[in-house]
């Protein structure tokens, strides 16, 4: 299990990385490598050039703006997991990060790499899609921004430009009062999930629930956002949540493999989505009661 031969470059800037990418149509970006390197070892992936972006300083930073938190593509998952900015302003991502792989892979795996790799069960991709995070790619010296909600189109497939380099993810700051829920199910704790669900309910004093974000992952070819906004303005009781999720799940197509039937994935995704929404609701209730 040894990779094919390839070249390796360590650019110092994003534009240098993009230049290398444009110069070889069989080049690939290497971020944390926790998904790519096993594929190299199995020779499923056969690049001619790997561009290691780990040493581009601006890719490893967090930027806080008034409305958003921007996470550099090379920020390690373990770093993001410990980040106070993430805990405070992207609580859903903070919850999800604990489910990504296990400690040694989180130490090397990156937030951007996970999104670019677009595994159907990736937790970070699910949160990004659920919250409609902005995904920025540098292409030909300019930034192109994609909405994570429609960025993923298949297993390991995205609409990212082939010569682009993912530079950062931008998440809108969660409001002061909001609730989140994240659930996933896997045979073993660190396996690819068989179903996962993420939910965030935003709340504003005076106007109540302002928006509800719900997404499911691992059950189809990519993470999918579910529309349950009809729940805004309702008391969010268990029955209403269940009805809304069941309705939203109706059109979802799920896949089958050795580990789970398509019916299982659908049933469990539905249940996890309900639980995630309930968790989010209960968090708000708790906040409001404090």
């Amino acid at each position, binding site marked *: 299990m040894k990779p094919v031969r390839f070249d390796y470059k360590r650019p110092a800037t994003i534009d240098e990385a993009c230049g290398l990418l444009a110069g070889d149509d069989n080049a690939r970006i290497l971020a944390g490598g926790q998904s790519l390197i096993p594929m190299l070892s199995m020779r499923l992936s056969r690049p001619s050039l790997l561009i290691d972006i780990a040493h581009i300083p601006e890719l490893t930073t967090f930027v806080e703006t008034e409305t958003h938190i921007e996470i550099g593509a090379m920020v390690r998952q373990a770093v993001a997991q410990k980040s106070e900015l993430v805990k405070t302003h992207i609580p859903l991502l903070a919850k999800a990060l604990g489910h990504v792989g296990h400690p040694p892979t989180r130490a090397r795996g990156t937030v951007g790499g996970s999104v670019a790799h677009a595994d159907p069960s990736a937790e970070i991709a699910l949160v990004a899609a659920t919250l409609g995070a902005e995904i920025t790619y540098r292409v030909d010296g300019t930034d192109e921004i994609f909405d994570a909600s429609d960025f993923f189109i298949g297993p390991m497939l995205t609409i990212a430009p082939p010569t682009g380099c993912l530079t950062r993810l931008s998440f809108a700051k969660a409001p002061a009062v909001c609730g989140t829920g994240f659930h996933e199910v896997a045979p073993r704790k660190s396996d*690819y999930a068989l179903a996962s669900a993420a939910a965030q309910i935003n709340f504003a004093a005076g106007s109540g629930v302002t928006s509800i974000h719900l997404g499911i992952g691992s059950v189809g070819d990519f993470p999918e956002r579910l529309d349950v906004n009809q729940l805004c303005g309702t008391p969010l009781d268990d029955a209403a949540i269940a009805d809304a999720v069941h309705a939203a799940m109706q059109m979802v197509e799920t896949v089958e493999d050795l580990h*789970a039937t398509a019916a299982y994935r659908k049933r469990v995704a539905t249940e996890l989505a309900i639980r995630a929404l309930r968790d989010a609701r209960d968090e708000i209730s708790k906040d409001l009661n404090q």
Partner: protein
Amino acid sequence: MTEQKYKFLSTPRRPVEDRRFVAGRGKFIADLDRPNMLHVAPLASHHAAAVINGIDASAALAMPGVVDVITGAELAAAVQPLMNGLNTPNVRRFPLAVDRVRYAGEWVCAVVAESRALAEDALEKIIVDATPQPFILDAEAALLETSAPVHPEHGSNLLLDRKFVWGPVDDDFDAAAHSLSFSVTWGRNSTVPIETFGVLAEWNGWDQMLDIWASIQMPKYADQIARSLDLPGNAIRVHYDVDVGGSYGVKRGIKHSVLVGYIARKLGCPVRLIEDRLENMRAGDAHGPERKFDITIAFDQDGTVRSMKMRALDNAGAYAGRAPFQLGKPISAIVGPYQINSVAYHALSVTTNKTVQEAVRGFGQAPTNYAIETAMDRVAEYLGMDRLALRQKNLIRKDQFPYLIPSGSYYDSGDYHAVIDKVLAAADYPAMLAERDRLRDAGMMAGIGIAACLEPSGGNSSFEPLLNQSNQTSTWMESCQVNIDALGKLTARIHTTSSGQGHETLVSTVLGEVMQIDPELIRITRPNSLESLPGNSPVGSRMAIMLGGAAARAGEKLKAKIMAIAAHRLGVAIDQLRYEGGDVLAHDGRRFTWDEMVELAHRQYHNLPDGMDPGLASFDIMQVPTGDALPVDDKVQMYPCYSFEFHLLLVSFDPIIGRPDIHSYVIGHDCGTVINPAIVSGMTYGGIAHGIGAALFEEFAYDTNGQLLTQSFLDYLMPSSHEVPAIQIVKHCTPSPHTVFGQKGSGESGYLGAPAAVSAAINDAVSSLGIHFEKLPIRMSAISDAIAAKTS
């Protein structure tokens, strides 16, 4: 609970091997480099079955760093086929496919190159012209006359078809008030050590010697390599001082070794093949049993089980090997720990286009225990009787030992009821039941699993002559050599590799006990096969009994010599002497010290008794206790010792998610006298972890095209620290009357009952819905789907 009659045995002692392993200083096969060593990578067949029309390796051979490409045709012309256990001469097997491939992943040819990476580069350049053929994956289908034989020359897919009737089965069925039938299937899994198999061979033409280092746990390994390579036995030198990174039965590697041995001879270079994980999974030929059981069981209204009919159909994979014998070992405990008067057993093994089986922990006993324990649960369910009470009623009682079972083996000793009582007390069984009910009230599915079973140990491989009459094996000896050097220190030699069993600790502890010397001061070496006495490697839970036995007996022989020297020196009769901590004391208070004795034996021949050889060395080649005879009338004493284990666990799961969570796990374990408590406990914990894997996660699953779907650890799921709970072991000791210290085997403990127990717990949890899970592993998806089907 062991009696404190030993100084070193049964006391907490650090295993001596651990020091080098915690420092990363083990000597594993991949750690060995030889100058100018070449590397081998095999090419895997994509097809489940195909005829090979031709292999074009020219592009591969033209690559820099590529030394050779070996094909099956070349190899078959130069080596003998690998040995079969049964008389199936037309099921021929070579390390590389010859003319046709019989499973996806089978090695078609092998590249030899200056590095493993270069060899893999070259594999991609080899063009195999192959015509796909019909293939068969299911064992029942393979039995049909219309099915395509995996080996056309053999004429059918049948490797073994033996019917045994032990006792008055028909009469017992007639007399019984009830009978019921069911089927269960043990999914194809294996022990999957974290170290893959590896072998390094080096030929020295001047010495005419093939040196082999390998990651093996294999009886008669050197003999088989020599036979296949047509070399004299003493031209093969297998180095036993290789640490093996886990085996639990599967590290056999004959095919790898014959291939590498052939290449090493052909090229005159050291050659190494270390399987990568993909090769290990699909073509390491180390899959375990895949077995369907059809059981009919006869019983009375009061729960007395009278008789059992068992049909066991095993899917051996593409070649025969020793796999069919895994249907033979369970004959030694075919009634489990129960008083079942008669048994009919139909053992069937077939070839299919799947990866080849190898010996796996328990050698077929764990699947059989799963079938028997499922039967006990089904009977209890049928009668509306408590599962525990049913077992307690049928268990062999303490006063019945030695107990002769219908298939001809005597169980040596045991107190099954006492072990169960201890477990129930330790687990607080009533509280466990209450917790199950509480979980159920809270909306969870919850169940308690129990399993009682035996670990036959230390045996003679009598399943070989039983299933193959041309095989006349009636010994599986083990041996040990001991020497006291001229400075008075003791060194013992053992003649096998180790894969975590702690043989060095075993032998030093036993010898320390016998010689009354601190085991820390005893050195154990593992020489090569040419410097070794006969042995059969650590299989079948035999080393405590056989290697421990041989070491003890070698020590006793040394002591006898010491006593004779002392008697001569002190001028008193031996019975007037007492051995004490290495010194010999006469009844009159005179002391002949260890140092004096060493000096005398090594330097003062004139002071030795007449005719006595100088030096202080001994050896012992030990015969299997009780294993003296060949089978008669389809019956045989197969194992001298029977360890007992009783599992009790509580499981719960969410009815929608279906992911089993093991709350508490208690096992009662009686393996007689324990030599090293930490080693025995470790084996048991590890066996339970294996069993949890077999019950819930692990399977070599194939798609309908014969492709192995679980080639990586992303799909072949082994329990992590999250899936194995804290486990409580409740110890009991019923010594065996047949062994030197009363010890029995423990290397397979835990694994033999855990799959049955975990399955039982899940089935208990869903029993109110009328669901029976009849195949292992029971995946969470299957649990949830079954519940949904019943409740929607």
